[in-house]
């Protein structure tokens, strides 16, 4: 291995000499088991709750909403275009005469 001259790095590395190993909490296993059980109970919902699915569903919902809104506008415009203002008025206020004959 090529030797590199790094006195500062070596000096700072001395500060961790004799470093003791980090230790987990005494209740580590209990916590681990609790987490495993929690994960198992949530597994059924994991698929639906992934951000990609949430955002995807939201985009779909907005697209359907936008489509329905544009369709509604189209219908209104075509109704206004094909019938006379008087007929529109009668339709809007439900004043059309229903013939029983």
């Amino acid at each position, binding site marked *: *291995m*090529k030797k*590199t001259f*790094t*006195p*500062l*790095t070596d000096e*700072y*590395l001395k*500060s*961790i000499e*004799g*470093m*003791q*190993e*980090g*230790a*987990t*909490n005494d209740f*580590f*296993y209990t*916590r*681990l088991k609790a*987490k*495993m059980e929690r*994960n198992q109970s949530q597994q059924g919902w994991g698929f639906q709750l992934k951000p990609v699915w949430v955002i995807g569903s939201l985009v779909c919902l907005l697209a359907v909403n936008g489509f329905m809104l544009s369709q509604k506008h189209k219908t209104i415009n075509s109704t206004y275009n094909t019938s006379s203002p008087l007929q529109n008025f009668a339709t809007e206020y439900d004043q059309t005469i229903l013939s029983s004959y």
Partner: protein
Amino acid sequence: MNDQELIQQLRQGNEPAFRWLVETYRNRVYSTVLNILHDDKEAEDTTQDTFIQVYESVNSFKEESALSTWIYRIAVRKALDKIRRRKTRQKLQQLLPWWMPAEKNSSKESFHHPGILAENKEKAAVLFKAIESLPEKQQLAFTLIKIQGMNYEDACSILQQNVKAVESLVSRAKVNLQKKLQDYYKTLK
């Protein structure tokens, strides 16, 4: 209990065997992950995730390496995922501060390792901060070998790299750290 017996029992879903595995490796895994993440809560969380993954995927373990190496490999990969997520979160915090509020344990705070002597804590914190700014691979290789005190053979099988590659990573990490520590010295003057 040898590795073979332990793996066999784990595959049968034997809980005492799983408990034995956790009790045997938990501190070593935690210590490795803590040295990579520099955050005790994230380290504990990652250690738990490591054992969950071991439990869930022991059936797909091909036994091409020692059980301990496989466990460490999972732990290191999970720690890396945490670092990547942390970096993404930090970027989002800078871009959208109103959407991603800053966390209590931000990267600006120094990490004080619980196992370091009191008189060395400040110096070690500077070293850990400098290590955090290294490229990912250099950071991992340097941490496993120089901080964790692992031998090259084990580190190579965990990182899935040959000895020369790992030696080169450690060497480059040392040079980069030298530059970063020099810069730190200049700011103090």
